[in-house]
């Protein structure tokens, strides 16, 4: 089985009467030669590591070694617990968990790249929010990771998933698109609906540049992860409401690729443009790297 496009993916799902996650699992068995139980337990291990990153990040108010991030997850959790959040429980919990993971990443803590470390907050954010709010069992979240990886697999092979190669659209964009499709599948949507949500989410982030202050995966990366979770929920909601993407997902991915190729080097993780070269961005860089050398 070789799946190279979202179109092929939907066809295979419909023919085999299986979910996107189940197809990924079948493909992995076929390719790796490992048995189903081994593969599932490897994925479980990743979910557990994600949970540990959330659990440690959510109560850690310390700042990262750079001094430019940290402590925001704790603030967000307090605010949500006071019942003040405007976005509702699903989104605001996802925001808290996403902050926790991404702050942990900035501290050089252990995280799971989904698909990258810079975008590691989005999937755990939405998955553990689903678990908290409607009791989606961990077993289903593991299957959700197979859904996410199938969607990411197609994106990665048709385009790119790193900020250095294609800008933030490739990184937070891909992770958000994967998360949107995963929410849809976990909520019982069809493969076509999941792929629609993937397209809708990715369209919303096309053109986003990778401009990390001082080259650190902190500003604006951490907050972009947080916002990614709310885009994922919006895209999933639209798709579950029956709204389709006017541009097919494969074409959206292709557009992402072309935009990334057109993006100047200064806006692809070199810290030579965008927010990185604002007055404050430059000051941060100077402060950090003069101190070191």
């Amino acid at each position, binding site marked *: 089985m070789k799946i190279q496009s979202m179109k092929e993916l939907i066809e295979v799902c419909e023919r085999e009467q299986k979910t996107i996650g189940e197809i990924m699992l079948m493909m992995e068995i076929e390719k790796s030669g490992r048995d189903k139980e081994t593969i599932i337990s*490897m994925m479980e291990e990743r979910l557990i590591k994600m949970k540990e990153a959330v659990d440690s990040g959510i109560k850690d108010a310390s700042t990262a070694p750079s001094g430019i991030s940290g402590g925001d997850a704790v603030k967000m959790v307090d605010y949500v617990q006071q019942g003040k959040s405007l976005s509702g429980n699903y989104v605001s919990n996802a925001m808290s968990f996403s902050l926790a993971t991404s702050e942990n990443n900035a501290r050089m*803590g*252990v995280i799971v790249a989904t698909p990258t470390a810079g975008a*590691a907050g989005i999937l755990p954010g939405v998955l553990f929010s689903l678990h908290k709010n409607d009791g989606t069992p961990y077993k289903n979240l593991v299957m959700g990771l197979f859904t996410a990886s199938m969607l990411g697999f197609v994106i*990665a092979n048709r385009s790119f998933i790193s900020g250095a190669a294609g800008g933030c659209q490739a990184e937070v964009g891909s992770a958000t698109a994967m998360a949107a499709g995963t929410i849809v599948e976990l909520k019982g949507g069809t493969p076509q609906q999941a792929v629609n949500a993937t397209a809708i989410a990715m369209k919303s982030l096309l053109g986003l540049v990778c401009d990390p202050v001082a080259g650190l995966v902190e500003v604006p990366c951490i907050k972009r992860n947080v916002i990614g979770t709310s885009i994922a929920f919006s895209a999933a909601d639209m798709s579950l409401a029956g709204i389709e993407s006017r541009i097919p997902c494969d074409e959206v991915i292709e557009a992402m690729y072309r935009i990334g190729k057109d993006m100047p080097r200064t806006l692809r993780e*070199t810290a030579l443009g965008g927010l990185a070269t604002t007055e404050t961005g430059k000051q941060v860089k100077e402060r950090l790297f003069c101190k070191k050398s």
Partner: protein
Amino acid sequence: MEFQSCFDIIGPIMVGPSSSHTAGVVSIGKFIYELVGDYPQEVNIVFYDSFAETYQGHGTDKALLGGLLGMDTDDTRIKHSLEWAKEVGMEYKFEFAESCEYYDHPNTTMVTVKHDDRLVKVGGASLGGGLSKIFMINEKMVDIRLNAGDDFTVLARSYQPRGKVLMEAIG
């Protein structure tokens, strides 16, 4: 089709902050560690393009040295690998250049290591998401795919068919 497995997308389990600038680079270092069969005594590292611009923020230097010292991507000692290198007496030097003449990718490094009386020069690129590639060993172009978190022992050995034959003696 560079990405072949669900674990290329969900994973690796790693210390932050970057899968391409940290985890993928640990793998390149770890491959060289396995190739040499020990941590090298002297290392010269050239970082190109995005690596050269952002290595400090991403701990790319710590990641590469961590790998060269035999650490895995989720080893929390990576944070302190510069100190570890000093501790074991590994001498290292970093250089920076805009683009690599051997391979066209923003996340590229050329690593020349010395161990006993042997030298080996390895080119590696980190493709994103923890996936990386060794594209050159000495002057020979190769295509070795490294998935962060995998064990490279056997893989590295197959590129070192008769002990240290692969490595050129210093002239």
